[in-house]
């Protein structure tokens, strides 16, 4: 029996609680009365994954079975979510591999020769060959990669993009040309959180800056309440409009998968458990891990945490028409991640963990840490934010101003140049976005190296605009003081200090809610 999510109220019997902070974690003794949100326990995984996939492909929702859509001489493109999902990375075999292998098996049986695979990385960095091989498996990789038929999406290739049309709101719809000109586009998704999937897959994953800027801007992001609820997210509304334009031009067969909450392998079992249920063994391994991490050099810590592979179980797979599939997907995601919360609180506490969508095999720089905490975790709600308007958010992260030069070259400049001028998303957008988006060097690195697009750090900053607008105070605990100040926040060395600092906006005895995340959760605030 899977236990549902829990809202714990910290009392005298509550042990210290674990808080993630980058490549490490700490134990924190929260004030009495603090509410702590725990996600539901992992749902039971589908016992026979292969059979479940087969069934989804043969009995799709609102669509013909996949084999009927395949015919000799057709152009088939398979797009798939890139390495920004799942987090942490999924232990092999990746669910995308298992699905794509079945799709390809059916395509081979139908005699389809012209097949291409494209990673839907939008303006994310290109995946390396090794990453593609790990994600899709040796068979798929060897059959397509050497022939150049397994590629990363290139949004800056003028010949590689096709303009499909305009939405009724005047938004350009532009996607990958190969995908646009295929007889069938199969999209394989990993719906880790409620934000993913649906029309966010093709119209965002395979698009360009030109199309993205209609919804990836400070204005739209501010009005997305929240990203985890596509019916209340202005960004998703735009994507949905684009998706509906696309639908008239292109046959899309959407395959969506949902995972349970098994984020951590057994070595780190304690990260997955509620603290008062920790066995002696859990306590010992936690202590050992803390000691080890305190003496380990940064590079080793990085390797350890980036090396975590999550033993996710599949909770379901659905295929067919995009919107119908997505409804089924969302229901499963919600069952796994929703925690009912009674009312907002004055202060919200978040631990920013070691990994986010944009630092897989990379470094979580200050901008990504801010985005992870204030963009993703803050927005991980349905209804209204966990913290009240004008309340305070307290985050834990070391916020080291360290950047991966290979993956995040534009972040370095964004941090040095843009943030030192302004931290207001709207100002930044007006003054700098265009420059960065069209900077030839960033474009070059995005296309040929493994760099995020020049405009990507701006999107990170837009992600947090709702939080910046909503919160009175944002304080980081244990962060690099200069980096925190550069981003326009304040820093404290302990939770007590942070609470003292936010007294001005929330009073001396505020109500506090701590999101015990990961494993992933969505606060359903009533």
């Amino acid at each position, binding site marked *: 029996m899977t236990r549902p999510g*829990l809202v*714990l109220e*910290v009392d005298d019997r509550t042990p*210290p609680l674990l808080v993630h902070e980058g490549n490490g974690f700490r*134990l924190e003794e929260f004030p009495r009365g603090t509410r702590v949100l725990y996600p539901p326990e992992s749902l039971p995984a589908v016992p026979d994954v292969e059979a479940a996939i087969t069934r989804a492909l043969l009995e799709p929702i609102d669509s013909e079975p996949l084999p009927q859509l395949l015919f000799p001489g057709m152009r088939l493109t398979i797009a798939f979510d890139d390495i920004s999902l799942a987090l942490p990375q999924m232990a092999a075999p990746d669910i995308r591999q298992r699905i794509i292998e079945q799709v390809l098996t059916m395509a081979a049986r139908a005699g389809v020769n012209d097949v291409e695979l494209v990673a839907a990385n939008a303006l994310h960095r290109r995946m390396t060959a090794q990453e593609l091989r790990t994600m899709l498996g040796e068979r798929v990789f060897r059959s397509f990669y050497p022939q150049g038929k397994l590629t990363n999406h290139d949004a800056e290739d003028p010949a590689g993009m096709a303009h499909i049309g305009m939405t009724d709101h005047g938004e350009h719809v532009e996607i990958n040309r190969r995908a646009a000109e295929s007889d069938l586009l199969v999209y394989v998704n990993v719906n880790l959180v409620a934000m993913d999937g649906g029309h966010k897959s093709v119209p965002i994953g395979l698009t360009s800056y030109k199309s993205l800027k209609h919804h990836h801007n400070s204005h739209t992001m501010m009005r997305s309440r929240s990203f985890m609820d596509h019916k209340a997210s202005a960004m998703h509304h735009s994507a949905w409009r684009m998706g509906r334009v696309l639908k008239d031009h292109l046959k899309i067969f959407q395959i969506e998968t949902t995972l349970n909450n098994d984020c951590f392998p057994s070595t780190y079992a304690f990260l997955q458990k509620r603290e*008062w249920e920790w066995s002696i063994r859990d306590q010992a391994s*936690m*202590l050992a891990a803390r000691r080890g991490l305190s003496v380990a050099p940064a590079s080793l810590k990085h390797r350890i945490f980036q090396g975590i592979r999550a033993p996710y179980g599949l909770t379901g797979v659905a295929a067919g028409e995009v919107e119908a599939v997505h409804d089924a997907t969302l229901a499963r995601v919600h069952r796994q991640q929703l925690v009912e919360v009674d009312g907002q609180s004055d202060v919200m506490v978040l631990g920013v963990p070691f990994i986010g969508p944009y630092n897989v095999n990379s470094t979580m720089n200050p901008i990504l840490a801010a985005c992870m905490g204030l963009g993703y975790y803050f927005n991980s709600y349905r209804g209204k934010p966990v913290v009240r308007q004008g309340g305070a958010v307290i985050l834990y992260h070391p916020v080291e101003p360290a950047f991966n030069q290979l993956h995040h070259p534009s972040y370095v400049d964004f941090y040095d140049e843009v943030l030192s001028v302004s931290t207001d998303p709207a100002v930044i957008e007006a003054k700098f976005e265009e420059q960065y988006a069209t900077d030839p060097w960033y474009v070059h690195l995005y296309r040929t190296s493994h760099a995020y697009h020049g405009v990507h750090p701006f999107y990170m900053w837009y992600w947090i605009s709702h939080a910046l607008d909503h919160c009175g105070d944002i304080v980081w605990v244990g962060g690099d003081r200069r980096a925190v100040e550069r981003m326009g926040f304040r820093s404290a060395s302990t939770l007590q200090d942070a609470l003292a600092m936010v007294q001005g906006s929330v009073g001396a005895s505020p109500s506090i809610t701590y999101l015990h995340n990961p494993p992933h959760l969505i606060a359903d605030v009533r």
Partner: protein
Amino acid sequence: MSVLRLRASRGSVAPTGARGVSLVRAAREARTDLRLVARGWRWGRRPLVPASAVSSTVVTPRPPFPTAWARTPAVSAVRDVIQAAGLVPLMRRELTTKVGGLDVLTRLRELGDGPVVFVANHASHLDTALVLTSLPHAWRRRTAVAAAADYFFDTWWRATGSALVFGTFPIERRSGTLSSTPQELLDDGWNIVIYPEGTRSPDGWTQRFRLGAAFLAVSSGVPVVPVAIRGSFAAMPRGRSWPLRGRPAVTVRFGEPLWPQDGEGVRELGPRIEAAVARLHDEDATDWYAAALRAATGTTPSTAAPAPPATARSAADDGPPTSTAVAAADEPLSTWRRVWERTESPDVRRPRRVWRV
């Protein structure tokens, strides 16, 4: 040696460089963490669940504490030494022990070397030590003691200690069903000591026997050796952790083995065992034949409560009846009087006292 130590201390303690400082800091952090965890998770005490999480927390029964290690030859040898060199002298120093009926064991061995179940009344923590130290060495080293899982196996240190010194194994007394361990032990040829009362008597009088011992005997076809222990309540009742001063007297008497008869069920054997222990008490207090006579006429004195005053007056002619005793003849005996009677040690030094007086 001193040079070595000097070097070592200079290397690790003196914060000559960043490394020394970081070592000191690492040690300090480790201590802080350890304290935090020890306090937060209440090391050495009961784990607690936050009030708001009680309803959602599933208390998983803990697996029985493993005790097989305590019965390995090596640990048995260690236990032998502990018992022979520690327990036996200790008991001799603190108590005046009289052991009776050991010949039944000799005779049992003539029938074969199968295991037996010792069934004793239970009034004190001394009982286990008494039974074990009373047994001949050959028996003792193959005897395990059933101990309450919820008390003796509650914490690892108590569990380890009692398993090591007394060869205890956990037995679940709450649910009433025995775990499978005693059965396996009998199959392996180990004798078992069971206290069918399930717990120490609060007042020294025997409580109702449960049927676990009988069940074991029936299902394994092994004999039950009744054991009567007198005086342990007087020597070290509940609440004391050391015997009274002055070497109080205790007696341990082994009785004739009871074999489960053909077709005899647990419900028949159980009362037989209870009766045998009561008869053994009588025998220990008087003599074998008198006890046998009383057993035959069904007038064995109850071990569950003192006889009513009237009977007591005619049976035992020590002292005149008091007026209060007469007045209370038809009411149940008050607790203090039950306890009072049982806090008197058995009279094992009578000849000497006669000589003295």
